[in-house]
């Protein structure tokens, strides 16, 4: 899983399978919106997530109610 800071509200990068966008989560903190997901290409502004960071993202995506 990778993440990048969105340049604007339309900045969705292509999904790893080339179909649609690969963003599965956006975290907004202040003015910064960081997108997380699985993407077709790894752009220069993308960073790879550690296992712990991926686990945190998955906790937000699939919380235990």
């Amino acid at each position, binding site marked *: 899983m990778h993440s990048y800071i969105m340049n604007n509200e339309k900045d969705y990068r292509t999904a790893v399978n080339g179909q649609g*966008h690969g963003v599965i989560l956006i975290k907004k903190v202040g003015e910064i919106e960081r997108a997380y997901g699985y993407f077709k290409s790894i752009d220069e502004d993308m960073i790879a997530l550690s296992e712990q960071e991926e686990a945190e993202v998955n906790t937000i995506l699939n919380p235990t109610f």
Partner: protein
Amino acid sequence: MQHRDVKEGDIHVIHDLKFMNIEERDAYEPKAEDLDKICLVVEPYGFFALQSVEPKKWSALSTVTVSLEDFEVYTKEQINTLLSKKIEAYNISSSEFKCGYTRNGKEVFGIEVDCGALPNNAIKSIPIPSYNANYNYWVDTTNSYSKTSNKNSIIPIPYVANQPYHVGIDITNGNIRIIPYSDRTVFTETKITLNYTKE
């Protein structure tokens, strides 16, 4: 009925005696027929009735005594400042505001969270500002909305519609989660209002 001290054709005034000050009044030696008469004291201005001749006792006609020390006196500027602070306390904003009511005996507060644009079929997560796990939070759905940049379309959040256009919301682990089922990025301004009571 004829007034005892007013002859026919005379003009009756409310007071029978007039003194320039309290000392002058107290120096006056009333007669028995002065009982119950009223005097005017010019400075400080006031009316008194002769309640008793022996001992001499004047009683103020008013039974209400007002002292400035009983009041807190504010200038017009101070009152305007206090009123503006009260208005600000109830103003829906990004800082904590008061809702003006209680829930289970606890005062209800609110905060408006700027959530930016709605996402494109992805979950958007926004941490609750100054989150406190001991507070009791809920979404103020009547004060939560999203609008397009041209402001032509405004929807409440949550938005209940056909599923592709549905926009869900919840609070999970100190985060607001906004959950659409299609591209809703045309809605660029989203304000979510939360309510909470404290410990």
